């Protein structure tokens, strides 16, 4: 009598926990779709693809960092600085450069550089990652302010702007680029040793070290990869908004962490995947979209997101304990 509900619970609860974020995504979709029929229109689908595209890149990058058990608070600075650099390189109203799409490559390089710097300082000098990345975030932000003197650099390169505002059919270019990047990251995570080591380090760094994994090198690589992705996002953001503005990515750090966590990436490390980060980014975007469609008061919207975030962290943390309980 007493044994049967227990075994039932044992199979049911882990299933819920394992797929909580995907279930939440489905639940939200049903809820919002029921509340406002406009939610299920094609134009809203493409709208959501447009709004999620940059977040899914920064979110996946952040999930890699979180999976190793670290955190990266330099998102806003690195995205902002790359965006500013992009605006100076393409045709703009402040100088006579016209390097076009080459700017994207430079941004990738700039992001990579600061990402590697994050990783190197953090792992070689043994300064906690939140402190290191916060510092690098300030430094990159400072360089951006210095370069622009606080004024957004307006770009006039319509070819470059197509990266951010153009569409193929109805699908936004930013989403296509983002999807390509996510496929690459998924491959790196699931099909390479580098990817496996990331989870191993996040799970238990000491064991990973004993197994002969070069922990420092992997960490530097993860931060470098994340930085390179922020660099690309910076260029795309500039293309999207039409100007390089150091303040434009304000809030990106929070959103990236929130997306990872909502998707089920454990903030304590060791659990996560690229699809999880994608689901998290979709949840956050659809939440904001749906709340506006439902006409929920702006005074409570922030609170709703905060509450859902805490709830999700509670769920993912619980799951992290399961192997220990065994």
């Amino acid at each position, binding site marked *: 009598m007493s044994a049967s509900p227990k075994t039932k619970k044992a199979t049911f609860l882990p299933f819920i926990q394992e797929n909580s974020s995907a279930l939440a995504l489905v639940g939200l979709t049903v809820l919002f779709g029921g509340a406002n029929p406009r939610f299920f229109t094609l134009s809203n689908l493409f709208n959501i693809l447009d709004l999620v595209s940059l977040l899914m890149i920064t979110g996946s990058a952040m999930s890699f960092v979180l999976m190793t058990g670290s955190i990266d608070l330099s998102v806003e600075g690195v995205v902002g600085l790359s965006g500013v650099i992009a605006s100076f390189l393409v045709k703009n109203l402040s100088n006579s450069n016209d390097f076009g799409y080459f700017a994207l490559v430079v941004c990738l390089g700039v992001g990579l550089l600061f990402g590697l710097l994050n990783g190197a300082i953090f792992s070689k000098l043994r300064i906690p990652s939140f402190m290191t990345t916060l510092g690098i975030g300030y430094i990159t932000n400072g360089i951006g*302010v210095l370069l622009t003197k606080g004024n957004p650099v307006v770009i006039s390169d319509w070819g470059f702007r197509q990266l951010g505002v153009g569409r193929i059919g109805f699908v936004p270019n930013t989403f296509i680029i983002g999807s390509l990047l996510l496929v690459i990251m998924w491959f790196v995570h699931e099909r390479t040793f580098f990817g496996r080591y990331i989870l191993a380090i996040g799970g238990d760094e000491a064991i990973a070290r004993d197994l002969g994994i070069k922990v420092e090198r992997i960490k530097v690589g993860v931060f470098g990869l994340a930085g390179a992705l922020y660099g690309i996002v910076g260029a795309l953001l500039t293309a999207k908004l039409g100007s390089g503005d150091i303040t434009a990515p304000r809030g990106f750090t929070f959103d990236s962490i929130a997306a990872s966590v909502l998707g089920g990436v454990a903030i304590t490390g060791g659990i996560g995947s690229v699809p999880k980060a994608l689901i998290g980014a979709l949840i956050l975007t659809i939440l904001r979209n749906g709340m506006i469609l439902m006409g929920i008061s702006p005074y409570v919207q922030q609170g709703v997101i905060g509450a859902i975030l805490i709830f999700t962290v509670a769920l993912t943390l619980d799951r992290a304990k399961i192997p220990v309980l065994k």
Partner: protein
Amino acid sequence: MRKGWLLVFVVCAVWLVGYGAFAEEPVYLGTAIRSLANPYHAMWAEGAKAFAHSLGWDDYNVILTCEGSSEKQLNDIKALVARSKGNVVFSIDPNQSTDALAIANELEKNQVYFVTWWNKPDEVRVTDYKYWVCHITFDNRASGYNTAKILFDAIGGKGKVFALQGLLGNSAAIERWEGFQKALKEYPDIELVGWEAADWEKVKAYNHVSNALIAHPDIKAIWCANDAMAIGAIEALRARGLAGKVPVSGVDAIPEMITAIKNGEAVATVASDAFWQGGMGLSIALAAKQGKIKVEELPENKREWIAKTILITKENVDWYIQNFIEGKPQYDWNNYWERWVRGIREQG
């Protein structure tokens, strides 16, 4: 020989005394603002620099940025008072309204003259202080009201309108919103179909407007509490082929917005002329220190006052570009009350 030395000494002494009498001793000019990362405060710093340069005191011009931290702002101010041994005047944009009080108490204690802008609790009276020369602000309600009216007129006074608020709880956001509400009452055929708080930021504005256009595809115009959000709104409209078809309004007169008005994508913004603010705040505080303004003789409506703004629309945008972007207007830093409109506590 000895006479020769005496002569040299006398000449030197006369020269030194003369120098002391005619050249004013430089005073540190402290500007405390939020950040240099936005065009508004960047222009403010330019104005401060220009004023210092007009006196030949370039080396005494100090810009303090608090990056949104009230504590850092107060600490930086204290540090400059200490460094200059009190030989300093300040022009301050307090990070938050409530900060004005702590700053005032600190500077009053050190007998340092200062001017504040924008943020101050209503119940705090400048007249209760000796060294707080004045608090200057702009009519946010008028800015919200005037830009809303131009926006409503641009769509023929009827149709669905969406609005973007600044940071909820920010005094500029609340007051501009009140002005917008007042205009709404005067236009019964305008329907406000929704509003969101985009916290003064471009990307949030882009996202909110994108979503709002799904909820209400027939939005005719978008009112924004500042220009950065207006630019975000315009880019969201552009991604849907609606830029220029759905007019947008803002406040602040950042260069991108001026271009948008010129291109017909935006219809109105308001300039408080940050360059003038940057120079004039220092000029008034310095005049008090040098005794050119007698603080105790100033009437109350010149201790807390509202300064003139410039409403920019497509009618005067070319004039504004000529005089404020391509050229600089001539500023007379000694004409302290040139832009005085009325006391804050007087009805507009």
